[in-house]
């Protein structure tokens, strides 16, 4: 299945992309993150939350559909 991955804030800088398509089998969010961190080592020291189809989920959430995955980091600036 094909996922759309969206990177926000400093995560888009760490991956040098704001959005990409990714081919994957059914997997948990944790598995997906492992894969992404392998591909983009700079994601390792980043803190962020994951949303599937605009809804925040935990790392054990199973992705079994063609969904949109968003990686949301905290911002501090004001």
């Amino acid at each position, binding site marked *: 299945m094909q996922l759309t991955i969206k990177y*926000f*804030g*400093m995560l888009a800088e760490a991956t040098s992309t*704001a959005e990409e398509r990714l081919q994957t089998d059914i997997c948990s969010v944790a598995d997906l993150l492992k894969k992404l961190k392998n591909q983009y080592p700079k994601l390792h*020291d*980043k*803190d962020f*939350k994951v*949303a599937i189809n*605009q*809804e*925040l989920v935990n790392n054990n959430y199973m992705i079994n559909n063609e969904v949109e995955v*968003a990686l*949301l*980091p*905290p*911002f*501090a*600036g*004001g």
Partner: protein
Amino acid sequence: MEANNRYHRQIILPEIGTLGQEKLATSKVLVIGAGGLGCPALQYLVAAGIGTIGIVDFDIVETSNLHRQILYGDGSIGENKALAAKNRLEDLNPTIVINAYPEKLTTKNAISLFSEYDIIVDGSDNFSTRYLVNDACVITSKPLVYGAIFKYEGQVSVFNYQNGPTYRCLFPEPPKAGSVPSCSEIGVLGVLPGIIGSLQANEVLKIILELGDVLSGKLLMYDSLSTRFSTFSVNRVDPEISKVLAVQEDFETMDYQLLCGIKTVVEILPEHALTIKNALFIDVRETHEQPKIESLHPKYIPLNTLQKELNTFDNEQEIIVFCQSGVRSKKAVEIFIEHGFKHVSHIKGGAIALYEQQTLKEV
């Protein structure tokens, strides 16, 4: 009559009317930080006729603030932001009460301050204040109108509103220190905090006027370059809230700087350093750098080799580091602290300042 005229354009909105205006007039809103987000938020809240506005900011106005902190002009440079903002805002709307708190928000003053207001607006610029504000809102049961920015993007949400999620339900723990840079480090275009701060002001007005759907349980992300808004739903995580409430008795003594991994680097004055007898002095400059400060009998360990030498020191020993001007020595102290050293400080102004002190003494 004057009041009716001032607010006429919002009173004629059928959803607001004089009743809505009355709600605004009896509301009290506290804004944390009168910077990039605080300035636009304050401007609209004051103009709309919120009865009492509080402004907390210990910082002073600098020239580099002016491109985005639009309450200030050249005339306010050097003034405290809370006082300068109050001064400007009293002209914008002299009919309301504006309280300036020219102090740092701390665990000591947060609870009593928050208790005097109905809604808290977070316009701060660092994680330790953001977590402090969230926790104080949870303890005092106040809705928190949150806004934050990074480069060309912004976030807005309303936390702790009618049993909705809190900031910790979204981000339970602060990120590692230094992993998220601030505006002063990476820059910002002035309009972005203007937009985010205005969205925060709008949420405040919606809460007070009970208008529309308050942005609770949702995180709004705004990307100013693609002009795209996305919202993500956030759920309440009760254990995160219980954790804060469980330690509320100890709130006053909590260290939010430490929570966010901010290390306090102790700085000592050169004149004081020259009188210290039992400490180990370390000069972290490159070996060719002058002047040498022989009187302190320092060990010479350039900063880039310090890491390798750490195990040659006793972590209970008092260590005082210096470099040429105080920048590298601060980094050295951070390295020592990271490795569990307890009594490490550095000398303000470095060898240059030490040399001047010595020369003064000789004269």
